[in-house]
């Protein structure tokens, strides 16, 4: 007889598409918050995109920001309520395109918040448009012939934007294998611990998949992250306690 252990923070089944990586990341974050005893003092900021679906199913306090501005909202909450565990949860379009400035400046000021940035290389909620993280050649609804890096630029690497800053913690994980998911949990746990110890800004970027808009089945989606996405966005820890750990 086995028992299914689901974190209490997951108050309802998630509303993501079949195969979406968000469900795994939600689960990992919920486990970390509960195991750290922070479920009752956590406040999340999200904005616009698939991440918003969490607001109904993930049982922490929430503030929904305008598109891209979750980091600024989180800063307002954390500065006034430093005892709370304040995190943002955003996709790559939200946090790295329209919200690039708010996301990066929270890191520049070394704000004591934790950012979870989900990189699936596409605008999911709006139906599969090109994101800052879309790979060169990637076909999307706004790059039907494949992303042309000559006119749209190279994929945005947010870790590269932040790794020179003396921030608390910086890592990139993935949901593409059981091993990756276990590592991701360690990264998110370290990020949350960094915040609660007053260690400054922490960010974990998560390589995820969007089978619906990638128009790939699950097997191919996993292989795409493992074989192609990771080559452009390496996983691992990059900054700990203000020091580079990757060099």
């Amino acid at each position, binding site marked *: 007889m086995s028992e299914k252990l689901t974190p209490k923070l997951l108050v309802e089944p998630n509303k993501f598409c079949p195969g979406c990586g968000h469900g795994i990341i939600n689960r990992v974050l919920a486990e970390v918050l509960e195991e750290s005893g922070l479920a*009752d003092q956590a406040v999340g900021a999200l904005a616009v995109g698939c991440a918003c679906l969490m607001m109904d199913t993930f049982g*922490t306090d*929430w*503030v929904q920001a305008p598109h891209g501005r979750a980091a*600024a909202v989180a*800063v*307002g909450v954390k500065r006034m309520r430093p005892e709370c565990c304040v995190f943002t949860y955003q996709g790559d379009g939200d946090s790295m395109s329209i919200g690039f400035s708010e996301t990066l400046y929270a890191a520049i000021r070394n704000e004591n918040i934790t950012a979870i940035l989900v990189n699936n290389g596409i605008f999911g909620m709006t139906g599969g448009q090109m994101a800052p993280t879309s790979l060169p050649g990637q076909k999307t609804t706004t790059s039907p012939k494949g992303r042309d890096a000559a006119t749209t630029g190279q994929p945005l690497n947010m870790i590269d934007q932040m790794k020179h800053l003396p921030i608390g913690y910086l890592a990139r994980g993935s949901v593409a294998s059981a091993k990756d998911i276990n590592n991701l949990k360690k990264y998110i746990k370290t990020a949350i611990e960094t915040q609660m110890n007053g260690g400054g800004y922490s960010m974990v970027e998560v390589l995820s998949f969007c089978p619906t808009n990638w128009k790939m089945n699950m097997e191919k989606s996993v292989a795409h992250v493992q074989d192609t996405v990771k080559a452009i966005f390496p996983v691992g820890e990059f900054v700990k306690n203000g020091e580079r750990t990757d060099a």
Partner: protein
Amino acid sequence: MSRQLMKGNDALSEAAVRAGCRFFGGYPITPQSEIPEYLSWRMPEAGGTFIQAESELSGVNMVYGAAAAGFRAMTSSSGPGFSLLQEGISYIASAELPAVFVDVQRYGSGLGDIFQAQGDYWQATRGGGHGDYRMLVYAPASVQESVDLVSVAFDKADQYRNPTLILSDASIAQMMEPVTLPEMREHDPNADWAVRGKHGKPFKRVTSTMYYIEDFDAYIKGKYDEMAEAEQRWESVRVDDADVVLVAYGISSRICREAVEIARGRGVRLGLLRPITLWPFPAKAFAEVNPLVKAYLSVELSALPKMVEDVRLACEMKAPVETFLGGAHIPESSAIVERAVAILNAQR
């Protein structure tokens, strides 16, 4: 409390702190920059938080977060910066959070210029962002009134859980006048709606409330109807026997007050209605006006006439409504008197 000489922006900032404001996130732009400058040292001294945001977009969303956490929060801007705040104001209104905004009006559209004007009237009073909301809009005409109205703005924001706006201008903000400051007040941040972690209770969501309220349209209309009925403020000067009534707010109203004195000295029966709230526009004030008034004159420091539309609605066109526009040039009080005399002569 003794009177002291203070600049408008500094006095307003101090009054915000004394009203219990403990968060300010903002960005420099003339002619409001003394507000972030003052609060950069005063806020931490009072146990609050000041952040120089990387943009107005970020500043207003820091205010959103601090307000969601239950604290009295404020930002200020001017001209193009005030335009950048509108998205956030719409969100804060939709989330039904209290917060105070200050728009120190400067001249023109686009970049415009840094001198006084009243061109943001529509943006301020119609809800400058998207969707269905309004802000209570307070228009101080002196440094003392800037101080008094900031306190009112925080209390009313709490009462209605809605953002409120101080609509000032470069003149009121930059001039120095004697003021009496209020006593320090502390605000309890632990309202039942404030996010602070659920602590064993159901989790809270600060978001656009329409998703969670049945009959949202009727609810939101009722809320703004209640404000429109209950929150009209104005001052009237010699309107009960006036042949011509000037309507003016803020710095324009001070010129008009002088015009009334000059006119009365010449035997011309001029009066002044000074809206203190611009939304709701004080329509009730027009009941105080001489029923035989021959004309209204809306005096505005802008290139396009704006408030005049509210004057026409409020007086129900029972008398002709004309405009006296300033724009880039501040009108002389004597010129306003001449205009009033010309209106009366034309009716003879």
